[in-house]
């Protein structure tokens, strides 16, 4: 933990005449939200540890437009998208890893029609690739034998059919991975998607995140693993709702890997 992280920007790399292997798209939550910044740093620690040549856009990054599009504001979405595409194409970006399934989905699926064609992967997929290629050795560390349940982010799972990457990464930690009743294709939303993160829920008799956290807690986990900064917020709030913060932590898959390996 003691080593300072190295976060080169695309501009710096270009100035040095270098080209990164991959662009790390941090996302708004990963940049500004205090809890999510820790996920961002965990991803960077993994990248630093394996010596991967990456860069971020830094202040040149802007919202992908995902929440605007889900809310119905196609204008704002396309304004954001085209501005970002100009920046990305200017740097001749080929490959992107995101720390957020919403950025992942938008960049991967919705930018091509507007002129942005990149190979986009989610950070759990990158970690899986690093493990599979032998570049990243993973040990269970403090999580060995612990009970973990994984909450599928909608835009990673159902939205893009990525179910195995996060699970395979977690399995490497030598933990007891318990599935919730509603998982993978049948996963249950945390309640934040579709721009709900930014508004009060409509009138109902329960909060979606409370329903989901209840289900997660029923597996009696030491850790609820997530792969999305918004799920992180919703599940963390849910765990607080049930006063279970001391028994159950909510952690991103990247944080599990970084923590277990003392990166």
């Amino acid at each position: 933990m003691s080593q300072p992280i190295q976060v080169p920007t695309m501009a710096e790399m270009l100035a040095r005449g270098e080209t990164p292997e991959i662009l790390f798209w941090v996302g708004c939550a990963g940049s500004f939200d205090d809890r999510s910044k820790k996920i961002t740093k965990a991803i960077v620690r993994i990248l630093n540890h394996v010596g991967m040549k990456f860069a971020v856009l830094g202040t040149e990054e802007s919202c992908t437009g995902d929440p605007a599009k889900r809310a119905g504001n196609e204008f704002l979405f396309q304004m954001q998208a085209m501005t970002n595409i100009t920046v990305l194409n200017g740097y001749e970006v080929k490959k992107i890893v995101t720390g957020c399934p919403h950025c992942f989905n938008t960049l991967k699926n919705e930018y091509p029609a507007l002129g942005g064609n990149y190979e986009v992967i989610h950070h759990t997929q990158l970690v899986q690739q690093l493990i599979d290629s032998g570049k990243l050795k993973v040990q269970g560390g403090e999580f060995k034998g612990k009970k973990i349940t994984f909450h599928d982010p909608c835009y990673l799972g159902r939205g893009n059919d990525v179910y195995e990457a996060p699970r395979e990464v977690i399995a490497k930690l030598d933990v007891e991975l318990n599935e919730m009743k509603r998982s993978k294709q049948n996963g249950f939303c945390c309640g934040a998607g579709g721009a709900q993160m930014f508004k009060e829920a409509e009138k109902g008799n329960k909060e979606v995140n409370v329903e989901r956290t209840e289900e997660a807690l029923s597996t009696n986990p030491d850790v609820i693993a997530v792969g999305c900064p918004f799920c992180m917020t919703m599940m963390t709030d849910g765990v607080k709702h049930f006063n279970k913060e001391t028994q159950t932590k909510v952690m991103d898959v990247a944080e599990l890997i970084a923590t277990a390996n003392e990166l």
Partner: protein
Amino acid sequence: MEYIDNILFAVLLGAGGFLFAKNIGKIRRNILLGRDVELSDNKSLRWKTMIRVALGQSKMVTRPVPAILHFFVYVGFIIINIEVIEILIDGVAGTHRVLSFLGPLYTFLIATFEVLALLVLAGCLIFLARRNVVKLKRFISKDLDGWPRSDANYILITEVLLMSAFLFMNAADRNLQIAGHAHYHEISASAFPISGLLAPMLSGLEPSSLVFVERFTWWFHIVGIIAFLNYLPYSKHLHILLAFPNTYYSNLKNKGQFTNLESVTTEVKAMLDPSFTPPPPPETPQRFGAKDVQDLTWKQIMDSYSCTECGRCTSSCPANITGKLLSPRKIMMSVRDRADDIGKNMDANGGTFQDDGKSLLGDYITPEELWACTSCNACVQECPVNIDPLGIIVDMRRYLVMEQSASPTELNMMMTNIENNGAPWQFSPADRLNWANEE
């Protein structure tokens, strides 16, 4: 007078077929009220999807009990309809069991139909019990209050009656054969494994009464089928036909990908790039998003006519489960109701729609329903015939936001933030990389 039965039958068949074609034509017209959308790409994948999802019922298996029961009814329905071919020939030509020359094959077929008929009968009775006795949550939902709930029961009761008629027809026929009655030539007894069990119930009857039972059930069965066919266009049961084209035209892209509004692209390009020459505007300017069914695509309207109101979507919807007003099933039912109402309006006004002061958004679907959606795709995943309620919800949100500026206040703030500082929260873009230097 000897041909009166045959003539009556042929007239009934012709009238039934004509009426059915006419009503299907109306539904086709209603579907084509929607905007055009290009879905003719990737034919081989489309065929495969249709075969897997509609023919193979691949998405039913997630709920094993209804999957098995539905499979009985589905297979029974398709296979027993082979028997209808014989009934049609017999009816028109005045023959009796014209295909019995097939010998052992015929025996095998009739026996199979009988077993299937029993399975259909059992399936429908259990389905009726699930709706009316067990009262499963998705069937007692207020979505189904009124006609939709009766519709479901009518379908099941009709199928029970049709299958009962079929089995009693065979039982009477079998007894007449054994009695050596003229016109009823002997078929192997093994053709009647189920009706053979019913036969003792008819054993006290005179041959003339048996003939009456046989003829009555024969007519009941075939007239019932013709009537049922004509009931389809008014019923949720239309899914037995539309499941096939609807899955053929499935969305083949990742479910997370929302459609791109090209009309917006043109305007955004014109704003960002002064040298961009926009193409000439279309003759009829298109709305942003959907206010009424004409703003949806024909596929979205077809989705609504393919919906059999099973409620899997709603029972997996996080908004609905937590008590919000949104029900994806109800969204689909509202789209069909609106398309039907527009169709009726057109029929009453010589084929052109007279503005009735109503629209899908507002009169059939409320903003509160739309704003409850988390866009999680659970409804889309669940649908056994690949209906996409989410696309409709998003198109209606687009209308609310882009045409009416009617988004919830907090979402307006979020969008203002994105516009001004490139993030949904009020942070300065200059601080975006601060995390890298914080401990």
